[in-house]
């Protein structure tokens, strides 16, 4: 009987093998597989090389070369955002900001006579899902996209960075890791604004000035969470501390993990620091900041952009303490702060298209992503090359004008040339905070500009020999 079972198994395999053979001749008619089926009889070596070339050459339409994601009347832009995960509510705003941006562009005739269409695939901030989504967006068929205008998070961006180079796919990340200006890792990752590392250099320099002016000797505590984001900000703060000769009295690199932070708070209090730089999530910041203040700490605090969220922190019980001790750092102007042309256009568009949406900071980020992609698409159209590779080439030629929302930015040159070194410092102010912002221009983030865009001496003079981490 054993032999019989073995035979049955072999037979099953045999069927697979014969199926392989037969399918070639029967399935060959008219489908995508035609090349592989018909060339079977011809030279075997050549197929592998000729097939990709046939697609790479692209088709020519009204003098513009295109390959995937661009047709006569449509440009497909892909998004790989986190809409259901931990950053869901923030990223929903970003995606909505971009949606309104494209609606405005399309209403004005689109780009090169084509309407812009968005393909949105939710990653839920899971690396595996994000990689899968990237595969769908980058497929080399009519369903693929020509550029990825939003990719949430350092982990997912790191996971796809290499594939993006292989596929000539341009990606705009929602991540400010210092990896992306490096041509070897992030050649096709278009970081918007400075990096966490530069931000930390500027931020620590600012705290240093603040404490020195008050007549104290600066004693710095640096606290970060594990992962690329945490490490990046942490290293930037360490660089600044070394350059400025600040004593680091508490150094918790990547130690904010898990749910219990008793150890962090007790060591922070024991260190007697008078300035603190954090690279955390909003919830972690609230916990550590709140417990430290409750423990009698009076230091000046600041941290990388995502550590503080005005909606979250200024709406809670800790708001007065944040007002007193915290300085927000950032890469661009928040919603309804300052008086810029770009923000005015955005408010106008939202008043017209989404009159009942309460505007917030996330929409600004989405709007800026739209600005970057539009500039690149227009440059590519002017070059007559709207293929994916054409987008990459165009991205090296442009300088995006953010119309006052953020310093203008280009991506040409090596690390030290292309990295942005300007950031902002905002004064956290409860008086300027209004939880009910509406698109008419009322409401406020509670973050009046204190300083910026500015470059600290440390950040200006620092020569990068690659990413900070």
């Amino acid at each position, binding site marked *: 009987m054993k032999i019989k079972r073995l035979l049955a198994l072999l037979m099953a395999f045999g069927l697979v093998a014969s199926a392989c053979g037969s399918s070639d001749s029967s399935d060959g008619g008219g489908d995508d597989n035609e090349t592989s089926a018909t060339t079977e009889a011809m030279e075997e070596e050549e197929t592998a090389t000729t097939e990709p070339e046939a697609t790479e050459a692209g088709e020519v339409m009204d003098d513009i070369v295109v390959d995937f994601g661009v047709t006569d009347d449509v440009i497909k832009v892909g998004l790989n955002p986190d809409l259901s995960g931990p950053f869901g509510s923030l990223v929903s705003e970003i995606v909505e900001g971009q949606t309104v941006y494209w609606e405005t562009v399309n209403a004005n005739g689109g780009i090169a006579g084509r309407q812009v269409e968005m393909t949105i695939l939710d990653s839920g901030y899971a690396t595996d899902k994000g990689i899968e989504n990237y595969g769908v967006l980058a497929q080399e068929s009519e369903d693929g996209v020509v550029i990825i205008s939003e990719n949430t998070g350092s982990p997912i961006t790191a996971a796809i960075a290499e594939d993006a180079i292989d596929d000539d796919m341009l990606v705009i990340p929602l991540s400010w890791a210092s990896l992306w200006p490096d041509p070897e890792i992030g050649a096709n990752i278009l970081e918007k604004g400075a990096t966490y590392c530069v931000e930390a250099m500027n931020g620590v320099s600012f705290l240093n000035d603040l404490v020195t002016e008050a007549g104290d000797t600066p004693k710095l505590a640096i606290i970060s969470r594990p992962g690329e984001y945490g490490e990046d900000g942490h290293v930037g703060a360490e660089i600044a501390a070394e350059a400025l000769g600040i004593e680091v009295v508490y150094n918790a690199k990547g130690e904010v993990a898990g749910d219990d932070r008793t150890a962090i708070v007790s060591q922070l209090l024991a260190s007697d620091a008078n300035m603190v730089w954090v690279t955390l999530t909003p919830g972690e910041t609230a916990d550590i900041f709140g417990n430290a203040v409750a423990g009698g700490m009076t230091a000046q605090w600041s941290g990388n952009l995502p550590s503080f969220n005005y909606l979250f922190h200024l709406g809670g*019980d800790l708001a*007065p303490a944040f007002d007193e001790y915290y300085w927000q750092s950032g890469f661009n102007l928040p919603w309804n702060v300052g008086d810029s042309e770009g923000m005015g256009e955005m408010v106008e568009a939202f008043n017209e298209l989404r009159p009942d949406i309460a505007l917030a900071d996330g929409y600004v980020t989405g709007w800026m992503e739209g600005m970057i992609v539009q500039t690149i698409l227009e440059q590519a159209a002017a070059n007559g090359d709207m293929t994916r590779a054409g987008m990459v080439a165009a991205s090296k030629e442009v300088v995006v004008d953010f119309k006052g929302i953020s310093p203008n930015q280009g991506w040409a040159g090596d690390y030290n040339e292309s990295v942005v070194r300007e950031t902002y410092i905002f004064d956290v102010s409860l008086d300027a905070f209004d939880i009910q912002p509406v698109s008419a221009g009322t409401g406020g983030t509670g973050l009046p500009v204190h300083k910026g865009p500015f470059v600290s001496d440390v950040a200006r003079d620092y020569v990068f020999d690659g990413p900070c981490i």
Partner: protein
Amino acid sequence: MGDLLLLAQDSSGFFPIFLQTLVKGLALGSIYAIMGIGFVIVFKGTQVLNFASGGMAMAGALFMSIMINDGGLPFMPWSNPLAPAAGTDPSIPRWLINLFFALIFAAIMGMILERVAIRPMVGQPLFSMAVITLGLETAIGPFNRDATSQAARTLGVPWKLEQWKLFDAGIPKSYVAAMIAAAVCFGAVNFFFRSRFGVAMRAVAFDQEAAQAQGINVGRVFSIAWGLGAALVTVAAIFYGMGPFPPQGTVSQEIHPILAFRVLPVIILGGLDSIPGALYGGLMIASAEVFAGQYLSQWTKILGAGYSTIVPYLVMLIVLLVRPYGLFGTEEIRRV
């Protein structure tokens, strides 16, 4: 602001730190205990390990937050007459009344879920029932996520972050409130078990069919168990939301959903069906967690960042090696 500056005093001696750690451990233990009792009541009443506790607790806490902040009830045309005037903080009695209504909401939610998803499964293996609650947890999660925006969902805690001073140590009022809540819950549950319904529940926990044969309305016992369980875990979620607990006065998408999973070692340590077990288990596990966090922190490099989070699981594993049914659990008599 005055409250905050008041705290700026030196509290670095050995004794104040020890006292603060002890109070923190007891307060966290109280939260664990309330949540644990919620688990145990559901398990006693219906033999279900309710993995949906986290989602239900957060939904209840969110309801409380909506009642207090939004001046209106969700999906209702009229406004909440109990909400504090816009921009002001609620007084303690008003806050407690709102809390009471949030608990009623949670209880109704628990009863509905029981009727819809658990009642049809009576008699199925324990495992299937537990997995049903996992399905419920997955399904409730997105609603909670949707209701928690980026903006802080504050709980309007009347005493905010105020503290008392005791021997140079800061004792947050919230910690004391958590301990009082645990005492009240423990007392109320013990009182309940002496009542008519409580006796019925104990009978049902012992043998469902025999109880039914004695004329006990088993369905009603199920309903009450789930209602009580949901209300208790909601109490835990609301009191855990108060600062200086990590959510710092809010219902937090980052912190609240995993609260229920952190309580699992507690009920295993105490025994799945023992209410005093949940109380002692909660206090022990939380103390172990907090003291390890405080006094082992200089060895963070060796123990790994965030080591105190797994201390409860390690304690649980060690206890189970010695006593497979927890410290207070009833040993199952195995028959063929």
